[in-house]
């Protein structure tokens, strides 16, 4: 079979185990065999290969597929692999779409086998003894041209972006460090990225300006998503949302913030809300206090345990006592929310543009 190197479209995570199998099969001696084992309901691994030498010795190769991998992902990954490799005669192997040289070096240092879809491969087994090494590309052929590296993923980026959104500049870097609470190093990295994206402009005396905050918000929403970035759980409020909000106002749970369309309606009413999106530090306790029931279908409440503390930054208390997330947080949550949430996000942003002095 052809290795993905010849494909135009980037391989998906699901393609990767097959690609790794093909790469390895092409490189083992002809009298060795390689079989793919069926993994029933074992979600810890994406695939498992059984490698057998002519003398009958064999080893299992457990495959972990990941679309992209950063240097900083490797230590936790190694821990993960160690934990689940139960037998001495098995090894773990990482497969990715593309592994940059820095990542390959680090994987080798950790003694991990790897492969990527451009043909980079390193597989070491002890019994039977096998050493396979080959070179593929040294740059990601599927990465868009001219697109700078980096993302706004992670807590430091969230802290910096929220600060830049919540208060109009211009900013001194020192102010941004203290306001955001992020480390100086990560503030610089985020600034550098945002400059590359032209979302930050420097004034002549070196201050930072956000020329277009809605674009910054949109860019952040590519890397921060209510349901993906946070641990969310699904619930039913069997008496409806009005009843839920009443319970929330009078319950003892304090560390929560309503986001999504219910919060947005405080500034820009759009249509009656059919579902609630709520941040809470302790979803299980909150659900109990608020009379929510866990559910897979008919869900009308999503509870998110916030990945980053910024979700609670700038919480606003409505006149009736209900706590709402800050407008910028609500807007980014709606942008990638379910149903008609994205169009509610547009309504809210429209209001935010027209009433900047009221929230920024």
């Amino acid at each position: 079979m052809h290795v993905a190197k010849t494909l135009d479209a980037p391989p998906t995570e699901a393609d990767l185990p097959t690609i790794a199998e093909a790469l390895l099969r092409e490189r083992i001696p002809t009298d060795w065999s390689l079989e793919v084992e069926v993994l029933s309901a074992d979600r810890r691994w994406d695939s498992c290969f059984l490698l057998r030498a002519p003398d009958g010795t064999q080893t299992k190769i457990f495959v972990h597929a990941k679309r992209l991998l950063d240097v900083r992902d490797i230590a936790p990954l190694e821990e993960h692999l160690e934990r689940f490799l139960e037998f001495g005669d098995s090894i773990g192997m990482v497969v990715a779409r593309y592994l940059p040289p820095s990542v390959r070096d680090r994987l080798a240092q950790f003694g991990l086998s790897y492969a990527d879809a451009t043909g980079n491969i390193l597989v070491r087994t002890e019994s039977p003894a096998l050493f396979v090494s080959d070179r593929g590309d040294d740059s990601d052929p599927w990465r868009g041209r001219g697109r700078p590296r980096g993302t706004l993923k992670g807590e430091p980026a969230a802290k910096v972006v929220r600060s830049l959104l919540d208060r109009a500049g211009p900013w001194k870097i020192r102010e941004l460090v203290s306001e955001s609470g992020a480390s100086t190093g990560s503030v610089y990295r985020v600034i550098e990225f945002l400059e590359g994206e032209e979302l930050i402009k420097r004034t002549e005396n070196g201050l930072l300006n956000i020329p277009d905050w809605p674009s910054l918000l949109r860019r952040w929403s590519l890397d921060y998503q209510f349901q993906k970035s946070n641990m969310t759980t699904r619930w039913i409020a069997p008496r409806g949302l009005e009843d839920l909000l009443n319970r929330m106002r009078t319950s003892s749970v304090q560390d929560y913030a309503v986001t999504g369309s219910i919060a947005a309606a405080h500034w820009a009413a759009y249509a009656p809300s059919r579902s609630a999106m709520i941040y809470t530090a302790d979803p299980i306790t909150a659900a109990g206090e608020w009379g929510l029931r866990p559910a897979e279908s008919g869900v009308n409440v999503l509870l998110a345990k916030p990945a980053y503390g910024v979700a609670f930054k700038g919480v606003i208390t409505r006149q009736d006592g209900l706590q709402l997330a800050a407008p910028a947080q609500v807007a980014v949550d709606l942008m990638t929310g379910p149903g008609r949430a994205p169009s509610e996000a547009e309504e809210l942003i429209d209001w935010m543009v027209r009433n900047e002095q009221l929230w920024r």
Partner: protein
Amino acid sequence: MNSSGDNGEDLLIRARSVLLDALEALHEHKDAVIVIGAQAVYLRTGGIDVALAEATKDSDVAVDPRLLGDDPLLEDAMRVAGFVPSATGQPGAWISLDGIPVDLMVPESFAGAGTRGARIPPHDRRATRRARGLEATLIDHSVLEVPALAPDDSRVTKVKVAGPAALLVAKLHKLAERIGTPHRLLDKDAHDAYRILRAIDTDDLAAGFDRLLADNVSEEATKEAIEHLTLVFASGPEAIGSLMAGRAEEGLGDPELVSMSASILAADLLEAVGPQG
């Protein structure tokens, strides 16, 4: 006449006016008269945010034979006020001049012998209809001020209106009786039951059930209703009543959410009422 092409809101306004007409007609018997059915459900649950609009053209009125006087005869009172017996020939089914139905019903255990019409002499046996499960409405009711809804109608009538527990008992009997031939028209009855479960606090509803169980008049009907509640709603979102309540919101709201909520709230109520002897 103008009975087709109405939207639900117009119908609700007209139905309320006709209900007030009927209550005026039965004024001499007002102690024996209790508003039940969908109109009573709306009076008890008004203002909750469900996707299905309040809509009914029927007015259902229960008659308590124990408090009913002999004069005027029910059939005379209704005719004088302009009601005529329904063309269906169904006992107790009356129709206003503009075609809005009013049903006069007597709880089965007070309806005497017979199969359809209630035997409550000297009133005509075709004036009222017997119905199972209405006993609870004789026990659980309170006087409410019922206003007309039309802008040019300023009438407000004080009348006994069945309480939430009795209304739920009655709906459960209606659903259980016809569950063998589930018809889409029954979906709204299932949704009415869900309305009650949602609008009324579980503990209040359970207290209502407890009172009904403690009274000889309503004990039997209430026990049966609790069995129906288990089967029709509390056994899960797939139970027939839960499904029907959800289906009533098809294309308007969220059927799955309604089905789930109805079964959850029904199970809560069963738990709060406790095991029945």
